[in-house]
């Protein structure tokens, strides 16, 4: 069997309390003995309530944070080993890029293409190669025509796509999106989601997408629900969203259509399959049920 791309082994994490003292004080753990394997090329959505530990998990993966206990392996290599040098850490961060929530906090340059070039420049890539990478990255996110623009003239969704291009230009193997769609309007959300899906399907980039939006989670191959620092559900979107009751107890919603179908089923309409995740198919099914009532 192929070894997992990312593997977490009994990973726990606690923040340190801010109080000064001779002994380091730890706050209650935010992640508790997490065991998780992520396959190369997969598209994983991570859901959880505020404070569940999902952003902490993301930050552990590219070593912004270090686990309090446990091991993290990237391509079989222990990245939490004490002997990791600063260079080794940079290699990890190049492989696993991160896109954050606020589109206004991530762009540094005054021209779009310079912003995208910032990452590869810092990696010491040859100028000609930087040019190629920047052009290709902007093309991938559909922002080529804006390359000479100033970032402040762009919409939120466009800014996020430029931020994504900046990451792609470093040729990552995995990108973690930490609520990267949360501050966008519906159109911006769609632009960014379509870009993320394309990166995964066409470029084979492993995607971890942290979100509160259930419809976005539907587009992933796998959904992981984190609650109080532990993995409470893990499976295909269909499997996870069929646990309507459990999702509610961990403070999450299900998509509106799932909720409607679930309620109908609990009222005794047994032919309703609320685990169907395709909107069109759901409509088809419900229309059939409504019409067939007549024939009985």
């Amino acid at each position, binding site marked *: 069997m192929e070894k997992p791309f990312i593997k977490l082994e009994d990973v726990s994490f606690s923040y340190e309390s801010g109080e000064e003292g001779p002994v380091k004080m730890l706050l209650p753990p935010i992640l508790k003995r997490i065991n998780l394997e992520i396959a190369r090329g997969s598209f994983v959505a991570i859901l*959880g*309530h*505020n*404070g569940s530990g999902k952003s902490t998990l993301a930050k552990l993966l590219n070593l912004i944070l270090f686990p309090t206990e446990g091991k993290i392996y990237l391509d079989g290599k222990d990245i939490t080993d004490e002997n990791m040098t600063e260079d080794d850490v940079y290699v990890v961060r190049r492989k696993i890029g991160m896109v954050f*929530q606020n589109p206004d906090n991530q762009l540094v340059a005054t021209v779009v293409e310079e912003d995208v070039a910032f990452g590869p420049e810092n990696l010491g890539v040859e100028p000609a190669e930087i040019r190629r990478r920047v052009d290709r990255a902007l093309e991938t996110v559909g922002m080529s025509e804006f390359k000479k623009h100033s970032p402040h003239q762009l*919409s*939120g*969704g466009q800014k996020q796509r430029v931020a994504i291009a900046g990451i792609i230009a470093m040729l990552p193997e995995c990108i973690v999106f930490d*609520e990267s769609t*949360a*501050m*966008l*309007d*519906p*159109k*911006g959300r769609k632009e960014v989601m379509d870009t993320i899906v394309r990166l995964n399907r066409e470029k084979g980039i492993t995607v971890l997408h942290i979100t*509160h939006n259930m*419809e976005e989670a539907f587009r992933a191959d796998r959904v992981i629900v984190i609650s109080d620092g532990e993995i409470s559900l893990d499976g295909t979107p269909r499997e996870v969203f069929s646990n309507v009751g459990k999702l509610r107890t961990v*403070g*999450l*919603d299900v*998509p*509106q*259509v799932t*909720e*409607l179908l679930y*309620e*109908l089923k609990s*009222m005794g*309409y047994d032919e309703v399959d609320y685990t169907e995740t395709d*909107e*069109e198919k*759901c*409509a*088809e099914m*419900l*229309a059939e*049920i*409504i*019409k067939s*009532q*007549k*024939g*009985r």
Partner: protein
Amino acid sequence: MNALELKDITYTYSKKTPFESKALDGVNAFFEQGKVNGLIGHTGSGKSTLVQMMNGLLKPDIGQVVLLGKDIWEEPKKIRQIRFQCGLVFQYPEYQLFEETCEKDIAFGPKNMGLSEDEIRERVRSAAEFVGLDSTLLKKSPFELSGGQKRRVALAGVMAMEPSVLVLDEPAAGLDPIGRTEIFGGIRGYQRAKGNTVIIVSHSMEDVAEYCDNLTVLKNGRVLLSGSTGEVFRHEKELVSSGLGVPQITRFMRLLRERGVECADNIYTVEEALREVKRLLEERRGENA
């Protein structure tokens, strides 16, 4: 009756410079007294500019802002009074907390209004109650609280001034479903208890569907649609082409209609959809009985 009327508002940023851009172009928007009014629009549609017009942070180039029947720019020197009548809660207001304790932070507004100590205490208590803040939290420093709790402290600080019109820019941004329900529950509780007017700016169609009575839709600095929530969500095509959308459930009911199911076309919450589908199913059963 309208608590707030924005009439023929035009506003241009960076006038007479190469960066000149018209943010609002002849906007007429009316916000009904005692209702929860939603203001939606794509990024750059002019929502934030319009919000800053509401309590005089920006002055329109052309047009009138009428708050409770009075033009707010009639006496420009008294514009400070307007800010007590129309309270603004910006996005991510938790970054604006600054006092030593939550209690003091909430009391800051009422204090500036010159209220008596007793009155201030009462205002703080009732505002904290609306947003569901425990009295033990009030003595704590805001910096000891979670993000969701801080957000509620900030909101309580504006509610404590009991403005006739309470304007909230993306009050639930970044919160999980429980956090959203708590925040909106608090806003609705306040609105019902005081009978005041609330204006909510949001990107979430599901949230405005659930909590707003009326909607105003902005597109490129103009009003595209306005009316009751049900009426506005009938215009799925226009909303989608303006970078917005309708709640998933509304879209789903359209898909049902396209498949020959005769269901109502003004459904925008799961609750209503459930009632409608149940009605259809029972109607059919009745015909067969």
